[in-house]
């Protein structure tokens, strides 16, 4: 059996760039991003899957990076808050969060925005939520749906009104 201290070769494709790392198995994806790659946009809130501040996208799906062992995600495509803007400027969600004051202290914001980006894709793909009528053909992008689908991201400043407005606004921009 290998030593528990053995380093593992892990390749992460983060925001389109390849990173080859040597990591102990216990290093979380969150710590790999922040401490080993230097992308500190993703935040460590509770480190126990309760707050959503560490939300990143893996192959387009949102996950809590605090519960992810980096070695498990070897070879996968990761998108963090640093990867959402492009040559044309900020992502529509980032613009909408600025416009609608979707934050106060800003600590939960990277997680909120990454989560919302994936949430909009889930919604467009027809994925139901706990408040969706399962028989419904078309789901309305209502406040209730936004709140339920975003319940994994807490904002202790309580900027939820601005967050919801920003997400609704960005959804319309992205749907044009």
């Amino acid at each position, binding site marked *: 059996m290998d030593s528990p201290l053995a380093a593992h070769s892990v390749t992460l494709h983060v925001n389109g760039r390849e990173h080859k790392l040597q990591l102990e198995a216990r290093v979380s994806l969150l710590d790999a991003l922040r401490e080993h790659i230097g992308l500190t946009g993703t935040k460590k809130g509770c480190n126990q899957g309760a707050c959503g501040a560490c939300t990143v996208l893996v192959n387009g799906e949102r996950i809590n990076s605090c519960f992810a*062992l980096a070695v498990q995600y070897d070879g996968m495509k990761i998108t963090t808050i640093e990867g959402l803007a492009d040559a044309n400027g900020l992502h529509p969600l980032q613009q909408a969060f600025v416009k609608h004051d979707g934050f106060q202290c800003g600590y939960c914001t990277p997680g909120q925005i990454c989560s919302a980006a994936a949430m909009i894709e889930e919604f467009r793909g027809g994925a139901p939520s706990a408040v969706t009528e399962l028989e419904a053909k078309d789901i309305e992008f209502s406040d209730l749906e936004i709140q339920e689908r975003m319940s994994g991201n807490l904002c202790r400043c309580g900027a939820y009104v601005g967050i919801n407005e920003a997400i609704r606004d960005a959804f319309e921009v992205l749907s044009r």
Partner: protein
Amino acid sequence: MNNFVYIRAENSQRALNALWETNNAKFLGGGTNLVDLMRERIEQPDAVIDITRLPMNQITELPDGGLRVGALVRNSHLAAHPLIRDRYRVLSQAILMGASAQLRNMATTGGNLMQRTRCYYFYDSAARCNKRTPGSGCDAIDGFNRIHAILGASSQCVATHPSDMCVAMAALDAVVRVTGKNGERSIPITEFHRLPSDTPSQDTNLNPDELITAVDLPNFPDARKSLYRKVRDRASYAFALVSVAAVLDVKGGRIQNARLALGGVAHRPWRATAAEQFLLHRPAEEKTFREAAELELQAAKPLAHNGFKVELAKRTIVDVLMELAGKAEVQ
């Protein structure tokens, strides 16, 4: 977190070999419970066998009209699958009411079956807990036990099972498929999880040499008439105080078939067989539902802080059955 040997398994035989050849090894799925428990040092495996790349992430139709759900199907994919939404709506609803979207994207079907209790004393290594350290005692029984069990508990342990998915599966008579040193076997989900008795450290009847490969959902047309309701301290992203999964078939105002399972009340998803038998062939009306709920909760033994769960469970059962009966009227 203590360090550990990480083993990535490419197929289930390699995963099993690694399990059999390694002392104190654990399978790793989505990590939403195990990684947390390892960080808190409640679980301290010497080796972790990553099974997330095994080819067990498919939902396939069975010849008898049922469905086979691979052990690595993610909770979000299971809930959103068109056949699950159509045929087993109670299961979609239950999963969607559990955890958050991020966690459902990570959590697997097999991992959900294996998740451990959310009893605070189990998580607090300064507290006594027979589940974490057999023989040490239980600080929940005389402690703050608002979230604890009212049915089937023992003098050793009053923890509850936290899953929503498993409650719906109990109402559907799902079957857990496992493989181990003696080959494959099937375990009805109602026999998969245990009551605490005097061995609360054992959550399930899965043997230490076994791997969960799939969950089979039987062909069950009545499951289209099903409903899951979860009562909790906040509207989303919280564990159940009480939950009810129900299937109800009514013809000519009388109950032809009833399945009922409760969550948040016991060490395992609580299949309410006494209530089910009472309901059969009786009129589908509030009085019947209330009597059935009273009968099932007769055995309840509330603790100092969770007495509210007894009435809450009864009212939730009645409410769910009323809603299903109302839908039957309209059809």
